[in-house]
């Protein structure tokens, strides 16, 4: 991440950071990423991040779980091994509901977590190096993409002169 084609702007609070994000975007700078110690309210809108489709994936897998669980129970009790248990009907929808529900939740939950980890490229990785070790504590960083570092640096510095920044490099 820390290559020469980025400049990083450091803040110690989210309010000036949000102002800077708006200013940079207004003057058509390209923000690669914004790193923060906690989810900053209003940042999604400022960066116009599209609403994640994770819930849709969760719905699809949940539905799949429901169909599989219900279908399996129905198949077992009507086709594979119909067994009379207390004189109850073979195909009895109410008794299939609890397991169907549990499997729906299980499939939906696990699929959403998997989607989150995959989309955010999160995996156990012992060689991982953070951009800056203070980000998870109290630093807010805007990474701006640049082809010509020198000129972008000057441009950004003058653009953000009215905003409280800690460091621009």
């Amino acid at each position, binding site marked *: *991440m820390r290559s020469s084609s980025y400049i990083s702007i450091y803040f*110690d609070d989210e*309010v000036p950071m949000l102002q800077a994000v708006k200013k940079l975007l207004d003057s058509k700078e390209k923000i690669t*990423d*914004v*790193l*923060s*110690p*906690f*989810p*900053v*309210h209003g*940042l999604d809108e400022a*960066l116009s*991040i599209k609403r*994640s489709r*994770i*819930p849709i994936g*969760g719905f699809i897998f*949940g539905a799949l779980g429901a169909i599989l669980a219900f279908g*399996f*129970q129905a198949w*077992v*009790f009507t086709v*594979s*091994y119909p*067994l009379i*248990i*207390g004189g*109850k009907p073979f195909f009895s929808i109410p*008794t299939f509901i*609890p*397991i169907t*529900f*549990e499997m729906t*939740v*299980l499939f939906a*939950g*696990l699929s*959403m*977590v998997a*989607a*989150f*980890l995959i989309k*955010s*490229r*999160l*995996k*156990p*990785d*012992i060689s*991982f190096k*953070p*951009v800056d*070790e*203070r*980000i*998870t*504590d*109290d630093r807010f960083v805007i990474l701006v993409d640049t082809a010509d570092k020198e000129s972008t640096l000057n441009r950004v510095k003058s653009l953000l002169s009215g905003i409280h920044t800690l460091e621009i490099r």
Partner: protein
Amino acid sequence: MLQSPLRTPLIEGKKTYRSITSDILNPMMNKAGKFWYLGMTIAGFAMLFGVFMIFWTVWQGIGTWGENRTVGWAFEITTFVWWIGIGHAGTFISAILLLFRQKWRNSINRSAEAMTIFAVICAALFPLIHLGRPLLTFFIFPYPNTRGLWVNFNSPLVWDVFAISTYFTISLVFWYVGLIPDIGTLRDKISKGLKKNIYNFLSFGWKGSARDWHRHKITSIMLAAIATPLVLSVHSIVSMDFASSIVPGWHTTIFPPYFVAGAIFSGFAMVQTLLIITRKAMGLEAYITESHVENMNKILIATGSIVALAYMTEMFMAWYSGVEYEHYAFMNRATGPYWWAYMIMIGCNVVSSQLLWIKKLRKSLVFTFFLSIVINIGMWFERFVIIVTSLHRDYLTSSWTMYKPTIVEFGLLIGTLGIFFTAFLLFIRIFPVISIFEVKSIMKTGDQH
């Protein structure tokens, strides 16, 4: 326009982002105190005692328990339901209170979720050894076998297996998803060494990117949304283990809501017990404040009152049904040979929790601590009363008998308490007990944004 007054801050004192990090991490990164070692020693011995009793049970068979042909479920199923109930508060706090945007939950959700996981582990142990042959546990899962047989999907016991394993899995991933950013914080605070590598591995390469936060938020909300009905379903299904039978005193439709309310009641009591100790031991008084305790006490009154209402409804319905077996079951509960257990149940659950209407007591930490223990004793006896009094005298008078627990059974209860507290004490040394990033996100009140 009507403006509501500014809320009082949810955490006390003037805090910066950095001081929040160090306040929460320092107690766990410094050397553990005397009380931690003392707690670990007691919990460790309790655990060893329990492990020995489990070994004894498996070696000798469940004949070492006091159960007999009439009372086939007693101490172990009581303790199983008790632990599952305790496990309900964690997901209630993290899921339902998240959906209701109760921001005060942010200081307590992490430890409550951890508590849930440990409680479910303790609970799952009981059905396992109750089978008598734990090695054959896999029989309860529907797997293809040469006999061509499947499990009985009509049976609530099979539903239970699915409900509890789903509940455990979802609680675990929910907890871990919430932990990832905080493990990242821990990783960045430790300068080097094996510890850093382990936390680096566990942090999944968390970097705090805006897009990751967005997905993290959506995933958490969605998990909360699906975990909410899950919490309610798990104890409902546990209650159906009883309610779908024909035993007088069990065969009632009130069981699912009654059990869920009781579960949240006892779960919150256990959260109170743990948090009052934790805040003192870890010096987190500014984060887990008196108002947190008071808020949880309000939930205790609400659920305690629901439980009280359920006791009365049960009594009323037994009379109103006109069924003589039901009449007898409930008269026997209150006035039969186990009257003392019934009295403990009423005293600990109904009478004591109503004291929380008094504001002074609700705000008192000492009172809350003792009350939370009393409530959990009461909730254990509630399950004991339901299970044992209904079974020991049912339709067939010739097989009426009494049940008396043995030392092995007490050992199992003490052992699971040992496992639970050992796990919790290890947890507070390994992971941040308070969700750091969530506390940072609620630090500022309205006017500062």
